């Protein structure tokens, strides 16, 4: 048993931290979010040059061959720096789906361009009615000649506003909620019949609602086996959920550190407010909340590393715990920063909003608790 990181993992951690310090400070981040695209091409090029975009991909696909621990390290740093660039939607979701389900042709076309940063990807899965149930899918692809015709609408597509390629979850058979009959298609963002409505979320990320109006796709657009998408989707979302929880842990740790620092310097009644016992005890509570979330993340990562199929109940548990502990941490951070805590100028509220988005992504605590109970207590 060990909870150590390899030398390479330490180096990646340090280099992302240095990048945030030198090139992605709070003012820079604010300017990026306020820009037209809401992301930074310069930053993404740095990601590519420093190899961060290659880490999760297999060596035979031109990647670094990293594992879940490497992904955790990257995402934790992304969380600390509140980096808004689309690592999760482009590299982990789009890239993950292509890497897992793609044939050699698809992988060799798409993965190298993801790694060099020229392809920006997204995964269009959510629909207006589907809430957290991915199989609730009305978007359909009908076989036509050698290829397919895709029709329907996806909403809140992460990186949907900026991607040039996407993977779309669509029904090729079966009824609305059926697990069988779902398929994945690679669709170019500028294909005819694809229309996007872009908008920003509260955490700064740019998403899109995307309609597909009889979009003609070639046979090569199908990713993996027709009708059997969910096994791939589950595997990719499972890994992306762990990654997202690592980002949350990064956000939580930074919020605690910033709040602690603030209470040591902010004076009221002639003393630092951190000298008040009522605040001290609450900061111990938030520290414990952070450590507990980190511990459960480590458990999940270790279990997943041993056997990805064995970690599902623990992932549900982690989602529940991070939801609860993040709420405590950003609530206390906001409160202890006083009036400044509720301004747009200070970063505290932006960490809070990111954590709120993380908590609802891939299912909220209620959803995951129900899943956990089903797995653990069903008669």
């Amino acid at each position: 048993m060990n909870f150590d990181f390899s030398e390479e993992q330490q180096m990646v951690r340090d280099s992302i931290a240095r990048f945030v310090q030198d090139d992605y400070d709070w003012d820079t981040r604010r300017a990026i979010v306020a820009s037209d695209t809401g992301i930074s091409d310069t930053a993404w090029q740095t990601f590519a040059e420093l190899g961060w975009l290659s880490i999760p991909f297999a060596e035979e696909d031109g990647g670094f061959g990293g594992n879940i621990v490497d992904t955790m390290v990257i995402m934790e740093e992304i969380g600390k720096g509140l980096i808004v660039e689309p690592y999760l939607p482009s590299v982990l979701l789009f890239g993950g789906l292509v890497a897992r389900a793609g044939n050699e042709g698809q992988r060799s076309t798409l993965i190298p361009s993801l790694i060099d940063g020229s392809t920006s990807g997204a995964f269009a899965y959510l629909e207006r009615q589907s809430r957290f149930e991915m199989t609730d899918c009305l978007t359909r692809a009908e076989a036509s000649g050698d290829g397919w015709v895709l029709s329907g609408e996806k909403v809140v597509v992460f990186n949907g506003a900026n991607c040039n390629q996407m993977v779309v979850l669509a029904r090729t058979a079966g009824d609305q909620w059926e697990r069988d009959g779902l398929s994945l298609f690679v669709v170019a963002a500028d294909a005819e019949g694809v229309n996007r409505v872009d908008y920003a979320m509260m955490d700064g990320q740019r998403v899109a609602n995307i309609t597909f109006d009889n979009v003609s796709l070639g046979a090569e657009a199908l990713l993996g086996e027709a009708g059997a998408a969910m096994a791939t989707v589950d595997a990719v979302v499972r890994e992306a959920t762990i990654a997202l929880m690592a980002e949350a842990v990064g956000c939580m740790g930074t919020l605690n550190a910033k709040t602690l620092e603030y209470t040591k310097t902010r004076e009221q009644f002639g003393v630092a407010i951190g000298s008040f016992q009522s605040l001290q005890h609450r900061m111990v509570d938030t520290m414990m909340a952070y450590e507990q979330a980190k511990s459960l993340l480590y458990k999940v990562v270790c279990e997943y590393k041993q056997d990805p199929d064995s970690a599902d109940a623990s992932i549900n548990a982690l989602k529940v715990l991070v939801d609860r502990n993040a709420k405590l941490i950003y609530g206390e951070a906001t409160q202890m920063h006083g009036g400044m805590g509720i301004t747009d100028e200070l970063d505290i509220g932006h960490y809070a909003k990111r954590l709120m988005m993380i908590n609802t992504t891939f299912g909220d605590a209620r959803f995951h608790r129900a899943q956990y109970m089903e797995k653990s207590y069903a008669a």
Partner: protein
Amino acid sequence: MDIAFSPDELAFREEVRAFFDEQFDDELVARLRSDNFKEAICEWQQRLHKKGWIAANWPVEYGGTGWSPTQKYIYETERSERGIPGVIPFGIGMVGPMIYQFGTQEQKDKFLPGILESTTWWCQGYSEPGSGSDLASLKTKAELDGDHYVINGAKIWTSYAQYADWIFVLVRTSNEGKKQEGITFILVDMKSEGIKVNPIISIDNEHSLNEVEFSDVRVPVENVVGEVNKGWTVAKALLAHERTGIADVAQSKRNLRLIKQAAEEEVNGGKRLMDDPGFQARLADLEIELMALEFTELRTLAAMSAGGFPGPESSLLKIKGTELQQATQELRMETAAYYQGVLPNDMDPEVLGHSWTHEAFRNYMYGRAATIYGGSNEVQKNIIAKYVLGLE
């Protein structure tokens, strides 16, 4: 980052299981529940000692196991799964490490064998009627008279003083300087003249706690551990040790397992309690917090094996561990419904038809002490705020 058991560790687990299956026999279980608790638990500890497993946390040179964190985890998990009691902490867990860390060669030779062999029963003289969480305010005083200290005062909440052969005591040897200075850690023979043990019946209707009075008790100066007036250093080291085991994740895990078992049998209006969504949600929240705490404990163990002694972060384990113990005990009492109120000594559990509710009652009631002893949880928060967060 890896928790996979190696072949050696899997073999160790088999060895632990085989040992428990063979040595923790039904006859011993019966005796542990009888009036001969002391004799039975000492015999069990002697079986552990014979196997070389009595002192999991001691260095090998003093008779410890030399186990890795993983081995300790495996051992504790297997032990707790079977409901096997832990080693009584006062000798092995508390005074022993202080003696090998701070004591003289003579003290090591004299006391460590009796601790390892469970032939000497130790108790802890820390709290006083006037000094609870503010331990350093203690007033029991020891005055030098030739080559003896003469001790006067009283200690309280002393677990199992009625069984004890020796007591380790914090006494005041000086009133100069800060209150933490002037405290000395000293070992006292319970057979000494002038010691009186007064029983305290606790909220679970049992007798494990006592008040220990000292009236002109004469103790040789060579029984001081560490330096005179520097006992606070020893006291703090001991509390850090005490706090690491105090989370007792394994016990809470066992309790949750027993709750689930009971909830499958309890029926309300024809519906199993286990199928009640509200009950399930509470169970889930407890299990989830405990899963996390188990890894917090493992992280601490791993850090300790790298750095030696536990630091102030062990306070976190104490706070979270005892909170979860109590929440689990509470849920178990609720699961017992009316039977939670049946007094163990007034009703045979077999006649009652709910054999587990007596244990639920005792655990819940005595469990209220957990957030108070070993430094109350509020004091633990002060410690973390000061030493970990750097807040003054």
